[in-house]
């Protein structure tokens, strides 16, 4: 290569960038498609935006949204607890416990959520009543299955057990990702199994557990819409009962979609900050620079800047 060519070309010569024709065509097509969609949304009377606006904060929609959120939180908490227990069983040295946990995951993760939901709702077909009878004391209590197994109860049980199957695998992978040296070091300091799990292994596993758990929560939020089939009054069910009367199907589905997307957006933001919190020991610099939300709400401890 001659000297003239190796010198900075911008001084003397005009640089002709590569022309990305296909990129331009693709961009143009995407913009055209977007415009068509916007035009349809704006002009097609079926979308009926005034109706959407009317129902967006409608009382029964709000109640449905509350029910959906309550279901998501309760089920996720239960699933995390059950899943953690199953994951610990799966990692235990006992083969029986191990096989039991494996069987649990196989069944509850494998059977479709909808089928489990209908099954629990119809539990009274198998078990008519629950009762506790002790010798000398007689029957302590007795309840009809149909009285206990309300639609809400059936939804919580079915989806918790189902979701726990996924959570168990996530927690197990997280625990296994913690190097064995951590456990040994803790053991050599006199910490027992339970203490090591609670103070050393699980907190470190959290970094691997949190991102997929965030995905699961978002997934679960939407999966709860299945409960409309057993008449739990959730967000979708609330919308359905309105459009069954008024036939404003599309506007109400838009309302429902809006709220699901809204909650998912909030959850994604929370997930981002939780991930940052559990990844804090990865920072190369001991800096005080932290997320605004975290500082505002003072989530967790803040290490003293050294």
């Amino acid at each position: 290569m001659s000297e003239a060519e190796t010198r900075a070309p911008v001084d003397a010569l005009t640089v002709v960038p590569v022309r990305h024709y296909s990129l331009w065509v693709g961009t143009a097509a995407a913009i055209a498609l977007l415009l068509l969609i916007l035009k349809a949304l704006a002009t097609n009377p079926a979308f009926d935006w005034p109706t959407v606006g009317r129902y967006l904060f409608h009382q029964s929609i709000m109640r449905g949204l509350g029910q959906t959120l309550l279901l998501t939180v309760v089920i996720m908490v239960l699933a995390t607890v059950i899943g953690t227990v199953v994951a610990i069983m799966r990692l235990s040295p006992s083969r029986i416990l191990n096989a039991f946990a494996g069987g649990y995951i196989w069944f509850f993760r494998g059977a479709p959520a909808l089928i489990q939901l209908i099954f629990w709702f119809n539990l009274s077909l198998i078990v008519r009543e629950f009762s506790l009878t002790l010798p000398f004391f007689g029957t302590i209590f007795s309840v009809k299955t149909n009285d206990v197994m309300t639609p809400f109860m059936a939804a919580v049980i079915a989806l918790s057990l189902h979701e726990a199957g996924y959570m168990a695998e996530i927690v197990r992978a997280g625990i296994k990702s913690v190097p064995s040296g951590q456990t040994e070091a803790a053991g050599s300091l006199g910490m027992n199994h339970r203490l090591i799990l609670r103070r050393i292994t699980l907190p470190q596993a959290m970094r691997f557990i949190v991102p997929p758990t965030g995905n699961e929560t978002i997934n679960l939020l939407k999966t709860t819409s299945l409960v409309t089939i057993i008449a739990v009054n959730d967000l979708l069910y609330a919308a359905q009962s309105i459009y069954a009367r008024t036939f404003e199907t599309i506007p109400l589905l838009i309302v429902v979609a809006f709220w699901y997307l809204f909650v998912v957006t909030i959850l994604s933001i929370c997930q981002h900050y939780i991930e940052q919190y559990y990844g804090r020991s990865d920072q190369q610099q001991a800096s005080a620079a932290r997320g605004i939300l975290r500082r505002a709400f003072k989530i967790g401890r803040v290490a003293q800047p050294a």
Partner: protein
Amino acid sequence: MTSKTENQTRFGVPENSMVFAGGVRKSFGAVEVLKGIDLNVPAGSVACIIGPSGSGKSTFLRCINHLEEVSGGVLLVDGAFVGYDLRNGKLYEVNNNLLCKRRADIGMVFQSFNLFSHMTVLENLIEAPIMVKGMPRNEAKDKAHALLERVGLADKAGYYPRQLSGGQQQRVAIARALAMNPKVLLFDEPTSALDPELVGEVLLVMRDLAESGMTMVVVTHEIGFAREVGDQLIFMDRGVVEERGAPREMIANPQSPRTREFLSRVL
């Protein structure tokens, strides 16, 4: 539970012994890694164990605090079994809580530091004293700061392990072990994972500890350290003690041909 003196007379443990091994054997499946190790480490002394990799020296160290169970022989720390109680001529395995309590008296420093990576340096040091010994938080913190001062890291209390160099991490690990006031400290190749220029700062801390009268069992490749600081030197090869003696004489004039060959390669 038998008394300390009863164990001592029964197994012929010398007076003032901190770590006593008599014919310790250890097998993993069909492979016998330790084939009868004898060792006595008097309280306040330093025993250095050298030998080629695969000779069983790390395994022996891990047997001392019962991270590995021995398959045969007697292993006593301060005159008592770590993982068992001797009653009526039988060894009863102790439950997990009791084992943990006894293990807390035996500090261990690992080749790969194994600091708790989700905790700051200070949290690493106060974790076990608070959770295992129930020490009040403020007392544990004061003690931790004093220990960090001692290993020359007083200004690093708020750092996470990942923000420290290897040598600094290992000094924190030593301080963490000291925070439990152990009777004996076990070192498993403490400088092998370090860059050469960081080895010195760790050895300096260890030398300081030895001079303060800490009982130490050190598996190492640092022949210089063994010569300067060690009270006895053990050369292990293929699961047996090939040669033992006073470090200076043994290094200057090894008797066994295998020791001679090993020393010529590492010196």
